[in-house]
């Protein structure tokens, strides 16, 4: 193992931190400056449980009568192609935690299978990009926010859990060009269901009841525009907080993605920002956590022109679906770049199992989806074992470099082979 590698990019989350130093120690890798979340990827341990190893998927398998049978990659690919070809309503799911080449290959597979492509975080990111297309929402790079933003609001997001170094590197503690005193030059607020660790740094922390976000956003806007008086707890405090900023940013997290109101919430945030804007500069960004979530929407927008889930079931060009997939209709799944069976509610998991919906999994880990898979194919870790391209949370593309030898092919190679074998 040569090295050390300085300024390596971390493929741990959508911050894609570019300041990791990797050195060899005790025959393994020692990663400097990486948070616990990213470290889990480098060291193969569970996120936030450094001692507990995370098992890799080491060989392709197919399941016969409930038993896993290790087979050659060709045999696994052939079986996967057959299961997917037989399906009437296949879904290609995930893609937020894999590189851009893998996403591109997956899109080609979806097109060929006449499948629906379902991003793992559709409900958070698609409404944001839709709002970006239609409303006047401004976008800024994390560096601009670090240098200039004096007012930061996290709504439905706890960056300490989804992007642990977000506060340190960009939004609160970093000292930037016009924020020379770091935390002392900024004000922080958060809105969440529960009090989080973020609260200790916040000037304003508002607890919101489940499902009450939209009402609160509108109430804040009402207070700011003078149209109404607040009837919702926290609206006045938030309005005052935002009003006193010169350059501000709202990070919208998964809390805003729950349920059917996601698009309405993003539209309302757009309205809120419009009210703030004449006198101030305000930005809205989604707090994507999977490392290449932004890359997937970049692909969908540039290739297909819409951030919503493309459904090739009725032909090409696809129909765009803004409602999350109805799992009861799905009859085959190709999962990569997300652990679907970890994300799904228990009921849906049971339904898919009961109906024996075949699952083809491509990825580096022995995760819950692999545990349920009819066919699984191992892939190398992007940015650690193989090269890839990824888009940072704010849309900036970066090249991920390998430092360790790959034990398996890259996901984009596996998906391309699957496409070739299917055609």
């Amino acid at each position: 193992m040569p090295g050390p590698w300085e300024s390596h990019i971390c493929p741990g989350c959508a911050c894609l931190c570019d300041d990791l130093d990797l050195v060899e120690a005790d025959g393994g890798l020692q990663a400097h400056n990486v948070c616990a979340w990213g470290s889990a990827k480098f060291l193969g341990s569970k996120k936030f449980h450094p001692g507990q190893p995370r098992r890799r998927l080491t060989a392709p398998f197919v399941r016969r009568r409930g038993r896993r049978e290790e087979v050659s990659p060709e045999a696994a690919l052939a079986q996967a192609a057959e299961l997917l070809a037989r399906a009437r309503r296949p879904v290609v799911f995930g893609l937020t935690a894999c590189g851009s080449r893998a996403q591109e290959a997956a899109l080609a597979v979806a097109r060929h299978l006449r499948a629906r492509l379902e991003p793992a975080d559709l409900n958070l990111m698609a409404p944001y990009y839709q709002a970006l297309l239609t409303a006047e929402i401004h976008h800024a790079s994390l560096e601009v926010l670090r240098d200039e933003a004096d007012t930061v609001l996290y709504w439905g997001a706890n960056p300490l859990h989804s992007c642990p170094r977000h506060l340190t590197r960009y939004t609160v503690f970093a000292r930037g060009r016009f924020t020379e005193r770091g935390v002392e030059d900024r004000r922080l607020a958060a809105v969440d269901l529960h009090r989080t660790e973020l609260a200790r740094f916040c000037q304003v922390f508002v607890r919101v009841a489940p499902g009450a976000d939209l009402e609160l956003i509108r109430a804040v806007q009402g207070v700011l525009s003078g149209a109404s008086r607040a009837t919702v707890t926290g609206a006045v405090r938030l309005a005052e907080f935002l009003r006193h900023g010169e350059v501000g940013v709202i990070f919208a997290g998964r809390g805003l993605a729950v349920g059917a109101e996601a698009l309405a919430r993003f539209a309302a945030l757009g309205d809120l920002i419009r009210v703030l804007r004449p006198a101030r500069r305000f930005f809205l960004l989604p707090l994507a956590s999977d490392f290449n979530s932004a890359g997937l929407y970049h692909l969908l927008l540039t290739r297909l022109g819409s951030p919503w889930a493309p459904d090739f079931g009725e032909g090409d060009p696809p129909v765009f679906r803004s409602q999350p997939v109805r799992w009861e209709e799905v009859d085959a799944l190709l999962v990569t770049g997300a652990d679907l069976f970890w994300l799904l509610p228990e009921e849906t998991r049971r339904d898919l199992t009961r109906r024996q919906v075949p699952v083809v999994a491509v990825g580096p880990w022995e995760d819950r989806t692999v545990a349920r898979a009819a066919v699984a194919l191992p892939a190398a870790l992007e940015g650690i074992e193989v090269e890839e391209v990824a888009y940072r949370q704010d849309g900036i593309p970066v090249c991920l470099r390998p430092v360790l030898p790959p034990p398996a092919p890259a996901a984009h190679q596996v998906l391309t082979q699957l496409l070739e074998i299917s055609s």
Partner: protein
Amino acid sequence: MLTAPELLEFLPQTDCGQCGMTCADFAGLLLARDLSPADCPVLHEPEYAGFIEALEELLATAPAAGRGMAIDPARCIGCGICVAMCEHHLAQVPEARAGRGPGLGDRVIFRVVNGQVVVVNQELCVRLLQAAEKCSKCAEHCPTEAITLR
């Protein structure tokens, strides 16, 4: 947690008195960071080659008892807020000031390695150089309360 008897194992234990005290007292002051291993003249003899290094390593990995800081690895998430907020880093380590991770050659008090904070140069801490009440920024800002200052 590192203890004086563990450090004593790496001292000659002859109580020769050249340092002005017994080996056990010397170990106690090592732990408090009031003396460093090289202050024992006997350890410089060829017979004890490697002992000074071994002691320094022990002291570098363990938080100072009595004074200095202890990090609870079960709580630390490696966010690096403490590294960015540290008073010493603010003045001496431009990378940390800007919120970035310090370089491999930077002289820092602590750094994040494999997702956890490790103390590397405790002696640079403002609390030890000046007075305890001068600074507690790292512990104050840790979101998980992983840092205990003593």
